[in-house]
């Protein structure tokens, strides 16, 4: 028993403890505490990743004295550790980069409550990453649902409340479906822990008469998660939810919360139900088709948006589509590409969401494209950060988005069903072109001022205070990680493959 074995437990329990603690602190203390704690979290998850890579095996950690089928347990392999590391890094960067707007958007008396919610969100993300139990997944899914509405309404403008109500109704529908499905799966298999559930289901699935019940249960769960993470046709809540929240919340919601749901689904497919049982059902095919639709429809919606945050949010819908398409391919390479896309998208989208309000700040606080013209000249730093994000989203080499698209292409070309190959390649092409159209248009707009009228040339300067240094630092970290993923994608994909090897 190594000391590092306790780190997954610590990440969950300490995050849960930090929630009530931040409620007791003042706003500034809560912020400093949260940043310090997230840094500690990066260290702990990094240690777990290093340890699992070194030993080459995953470890299970019994929660209490009762062993597997009776008590809870959590499990850490290098894939879980990598995801947890990604979550903590992006959380740290979003909180640091968006603090200026947290202070601006949120009433002073509620900033500590906001950080309290962020810590609970961390706990839920960590628990969903490490858990080895379907019902624990549901409990922390519920926390995540409530927290994501909380960090949305905290801005207290009418539209965020409206968006939060809609988001909550859809999210609760998703949670309800997930719970129903957990009940059905428990009834069929008699287990809640993932590994015993898979063994039990594998035995039951030998009888073909049981397949409809299993596929119904898993199907309901998949729909629930698809609603929560915003797969086509459930993507319409995204622009209001992501685009109107305070930038930190927008970044966290779009790049982490939806990914945590998808990772849980992934775990259920692979570990709780078993991919062989899933392949006997039509679920993967449905996800594949919906993912492709999402890629196209999300991009078209983004093209029609006239406001930068709506555009970024709709492009999230397209990127979520990529992930589901990868899952739908059904091969191990497809899963690995989907996981890589999770990394690429989380790093890029958080950068874009914390950058766009800085561009708006020098454009009279308006997010409309018309007002944003030339904003990159007024705030060169934000302009550069936005360029990095946009190029990565389009899929230009040396950025993460390119490697993700390459992996999707490789996954279908080097193996997999024939008809899917053509569809995936076509969809990748169309979606990339659409991405390029709206992101390059945005880049041109923010870099060049129209020379005709003199009224837009009022030279608003960016606000230079202490939080700008945080933005610079966080933006640099996200950029470097993004380029690392683009240039050395084999490092991450190697870890992903090793993680998939020890995933079961």
């Amino acid at each position, binding site marked *: 028993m190594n000391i590092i*074995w306790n780190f997954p437990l610590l990440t969950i329990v300490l995050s*849960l403890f930090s929630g009530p603690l931040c409620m007791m602190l003042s706003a500034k203390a809560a912020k400093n505490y949260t940043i310090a704690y997230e840094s500690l979290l990066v260290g702990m998850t990094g240690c777990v990743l290093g340890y699992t890579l070194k030993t080459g095996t995953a470890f299970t950690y019994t929660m209490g004295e009762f062993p597997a089928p009776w008590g809870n347990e959590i499990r850490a392999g290098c894939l879980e550790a990598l995801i947890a590391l990604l979550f903590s890094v992006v959380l740290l960067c979003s909180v640091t980069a968006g603090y200026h707007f947290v202070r601006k958007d949120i009433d002073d008396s509620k900033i500590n409550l906001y950080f309290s919610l962020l810590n609970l969100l961390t706990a*839920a993300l960590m628990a969903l990453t490490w858990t080895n139990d379907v019902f624990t997944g549901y409990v922390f899914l519920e926390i995540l649902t409530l927290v994501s509405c909380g960090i949305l309404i905290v801005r207290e403008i009418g539209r965020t409340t409206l968006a939060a109500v809609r988001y909550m109704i859809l999210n609760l529908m998703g949670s309800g479906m997930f719970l129903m499905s957990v009940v059905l799966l428990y009834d069929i298999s008699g287990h809640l822990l993932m590994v015993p559930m898979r063994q039990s289901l594998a035995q039951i699935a030998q009888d073909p008469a049981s397949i409809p019940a299993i596929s119904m249960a898993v199907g309901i769960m998949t729909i629930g998660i698809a609603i929560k993470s915003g797969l086509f046709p459930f993507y319409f809540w995204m622009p*209001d939810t992501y685009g109107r929240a305070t930038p930190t919340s927008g970044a966290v919601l779009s790049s982490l919360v939806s990914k945590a749901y998808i990772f849980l689904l992934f775990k259920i497919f692979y570990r709780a139900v078993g991919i062989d049982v899933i392949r006997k059902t039509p679920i993967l095919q449905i996800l594949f088709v919906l993912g492709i639709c999402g890629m196209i429809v999300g991009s078209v919606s983004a093209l029609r948006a006239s406001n930068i945050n709506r555009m970024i949010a709709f492009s999230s819908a397209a990127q979520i589509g990529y992930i589901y398409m990868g899952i739908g391919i059904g091969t191990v390479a497809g899963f690995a590409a989907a996981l890589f896309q999770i990394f690429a998208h989380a790093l890029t989208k958080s950068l874009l969401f914390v950058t766009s309000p800085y561009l708006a700040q020098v454009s009279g606080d308006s997010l409309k494209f018309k007002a944003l013209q030339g904003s990159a000249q007024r705030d060169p730093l934000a302009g550069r950060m936005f360029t990095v994000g946009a190029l990565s989203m389009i899929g230009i080499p040396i950025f993460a988005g390119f490697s993700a698209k390459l992996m999707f292409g490789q996954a279908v070309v080097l193996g997999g069903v024939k008809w899917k190959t053509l569809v995936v390649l076509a969809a990748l092409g169309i979606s990339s072109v659409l991405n390029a159209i709206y992101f390059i248009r945005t880049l041109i707009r923010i870099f060049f001022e129209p020379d005709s009228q003199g009224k837009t040339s009022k030279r608003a300067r960016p606000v230079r205070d202490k939080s700008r240094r945080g933005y610079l630092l966080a933006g640099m970290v996200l950029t470097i990680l993004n380029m690392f993923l683009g240039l050395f994608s084999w490092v991450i994909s190697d870890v992903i493959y090793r993680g998939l090897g020890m995933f079961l």
Partner: protein
Amino acid sequence: MKEEFRSWIMGESDPMEELLDFSQENDLNREERRKLTVEKLRVLQEDPDEQQKVARVRGRFTRFYYLVAVLSCVFLSCVLLFSISMLPQYGEENPRTTEVKDRYIEKGVEETGAVNVVSGMILDYRAFDTLGESHVLFTALICVMILLRIDRKNQRTGYEDYYTIRSDVYYDLSKDSILCTMSRVLLPAIVLYGIYILLNGQNSPGGGFSAGAVLGAGMILFSAAFGMQTADRFFTMKACKVTIFVSLAFYSFAKGYVFFMGANGFENHIPKGTPGAILSGGMILPLDIAVGCVVSVTMFGFYSLFRRGSIGMDVDYAHYSSKPGKAKGGRQV
């Protein structure tokens, strides 16, 4: 064509302008748009043709909406009923699928020290889930506090004075002699009953969640019968925060300790006690008390926030009031 493309790129024109976009909260043209809306409404009110058209479209949409809603509900119900018909029969004995519940029922008392198997299950076997569940309530309280606690952003000027502070005077039920007398009789019973199920959760049905609900209901009855001011004397924002913090911190650390000791194979030194006694079930009793505190405080907090936008008198209403002559600048908590 070339000219159009150039102007699109340069943002001088946008063919898709306003096609999907909703209003932006910081928009400069807000006033103009409001005028437009008012104008549209005026036209609508005066023009019967327009009204008919709107009514027709709305009626068509409503019918379509109901149809789709009913069809999808029926479809989902059929699907669920169909899948339920294929579930294993009730009472079917399959050793693989019943091993978990068999162990809970057969060995639960011996292993957890709690006669109430449900308590043993949620607070011992599967304590990790309950650790999350107790924080769900806390999360809900934070969300409600964010939404309803009065601050500079969500105040409606001239509205709080009437509906919140003065509601205690206008709708003060403490003058109601029936409610007062009945509460005097009922309250001790409710509180005693709550404490009983709180302390006896390991031996009989009950436990932290249900006891917290009973105690919270008792507190709500108390403040309704004897006035919010009376409740404010002991239940302030600070008391609420401290209670929740101490309970949840205790919960996290107690369970963290048990998880840590269990996983590392150490003895956790928590005596199980004799099943059936008050002090039995190991950590179950203290955890129940912690959960009970959180639940009751949260319930009362919800009531207080919904009724007047604060817990205790932590918000200086005069500060947010729009009435002239009131003091500016209030204390902050």
